[in-house]
């Protein structure tokens, strides 16, 4: 059984298959029957069960769900921080996990952005951005050149020598994004990166992220609990339901990119958001 057909089976009738998932050769990330169970002495929780998903090169996939649906668990598995109990995760066809051991050569091609920027206050903006390159062993001149390019890309030109304490929350998150992009990751994983920001900053960061992802042609997995944000940014929106975490539906969002903020006032956008909201409300009742 190919991953695509598995996905089709699990996807509810309302969801539309993206036509691009058919091109198996371009698959950047494949999740095949991925599940995660937590066993403690007292309890046995199934956090995620039978997740099948294929993400293509350059695609932006939003994952939404209520808290507790396992979306953060999913991202931590993709980031190589938590091993799956069952199933396989393939990055460009290479397995990320061998049992509970992570393939470090695959992990080193991923960029991760967390909810908190988690910058290192003892390093300047440029040094923070270049940290992954430094760990990789790049020489100083080349990594600083790259850091300055990326600072420019994320809209922080002129702040390269500033320290994190001098930056606002939105600017810090931009640094975190630049840091994740520094290694030219095959896959950019984002776990509610704008969750800690105020609504206006968040809206601006959404536009910025769209611009950055288009400019870098990055493949992005974007986790959020904000439906608007998920639909605005996503080429597809994956809806996870809790207990156990499963893919409930996958919606393709057809608005052409780049999308302006005004796309949110279009009727069709409203329909998609409303339907997703109802589906999420159903989760609450279960």
């Amino acid at each position, binding site marked *: 059984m190919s991953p695509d057909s598995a996905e089709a089976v699990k996807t509810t009738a309302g969801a539309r298959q993206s036509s691009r998932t058919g091109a198996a050769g371009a698959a950047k990330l494949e999740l095949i029957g991925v599940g995660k169970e937590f066993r403690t002495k007292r309890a046995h929780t199934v956090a995620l069960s039978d997740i099948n998903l294929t993400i293509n090169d350059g695609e932006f996939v939003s994952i939404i769900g209520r808290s507790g649906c396992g979306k953060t668990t999913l991202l931590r598995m993709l980031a190589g921080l938590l091993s799956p109990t069952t199933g396989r995760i393939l990055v460009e066809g290479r397995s990320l996990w061998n049992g509970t051991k992570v393939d470090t050569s695959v992990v*080193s091609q991923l960029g991760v952005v967390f909810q908190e920027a988690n910058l290192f206050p003892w390093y300047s903006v440029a040094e923070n951005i270049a*940290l992954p390159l430094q760990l990789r062993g790049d020489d100083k001149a080349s990594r600083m050149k790259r850091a300055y390019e990326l600072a420019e890309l994320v809209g922080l030109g002129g702040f390269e020598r500033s320290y994190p304490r001098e930056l606002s929350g939105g600017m810090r998150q931009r640094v975190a994004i630049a840091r994740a992009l520094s290694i030219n990751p095959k896959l950019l994983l984002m776990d509610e990166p704008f969750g800690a920001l105020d609504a206006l900053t968040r809206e601006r960061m959404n536009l910025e992220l769209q611009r950055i992802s288009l400019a870098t042609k990055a493949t992005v997995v974007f986790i959020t609990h904000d439906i608007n944000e998920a639909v605005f940014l996503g080429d597809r929106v994956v809806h996870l339901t809790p207990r156990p975490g499963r893919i409930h539906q996958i919606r393709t969002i057809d608005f052409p990119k780049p999308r302006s903020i005004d796309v949110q006032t279009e009727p069709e956008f409203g329909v998609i958001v409303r339907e997703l909201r109802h589906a999420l409300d159903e989760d609450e009742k279960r």
Partner: protein
Amino acid sequence: MRGVSRDRSRKLLPWISTPIILVLAFVAWDVFVRVSEISDAVLPPPGRVLSEMVTVLTTAETWEHAWITTSETLGGFLIALVVGVVAGVVLGKVPWLELSLRPVIVASQVVPKVALVPLFVIWFGFGITSKVVISAMLAFFPIMLNTQLGVRSVEAGQREVMRSLNATRWQTFRHLEMKSTLPYVLAGMEVGIVLAIIGAIVGEYLGGSEGLGYMLVRTLNDLNASAMFATTILLSLIGLLLYFVVNALKRFLIPWHESVYGQQDLNG
């Protein structure tokens, strides 16, 4: 630009206020001595103390004693620094060890350590060794406890970043753990250096024939209050100097830390 100039005048303020306070204190002292006609043997006028100060400072013997006290302090402090940081890192990293030693550590914290000084004199003699040991013991605890706290306080999110970047143990230590713990160690050092001086002086009070503490006891036996004042001032200056050295080290090593960039004190 008003904000900037206000900032600057705020930084200058202590430099202006401190001399004024000192002058006022000396004037008040002088007036009090004149008005109350208090005995010289109890409270000498500041002028007398000043001239005694010159005498004390120009005596070669004073500097030998000062050097002894300084080296005892530094010796004890350095031992405390090395042992304290190592112990702090180990206890911070090995929870079961910390847990099993906690009662002992708390108990030894509560013991008035100065009360042990006579014991140390018996064990390590009247020479420099006993003073170094006392200094080290006093300075050890704040350094060890702060280091332990620092090791524990490395942010989970930052660790996660290093993990997601596939960092080696050494890289995590170099780029995260060491940098993150350093402010705590330096805070411990600031407390430690002051305690180290106290240790050396108290040690000298109780035994031996060297150091500024010994000199103080001698001036007491001579009932020479002005010399006592002069020696005390010299001791304070040495203490201040050592503290500023540690503080400068902090400014140099962790300019990014809020305890440095938020600091608006004398040396600001």
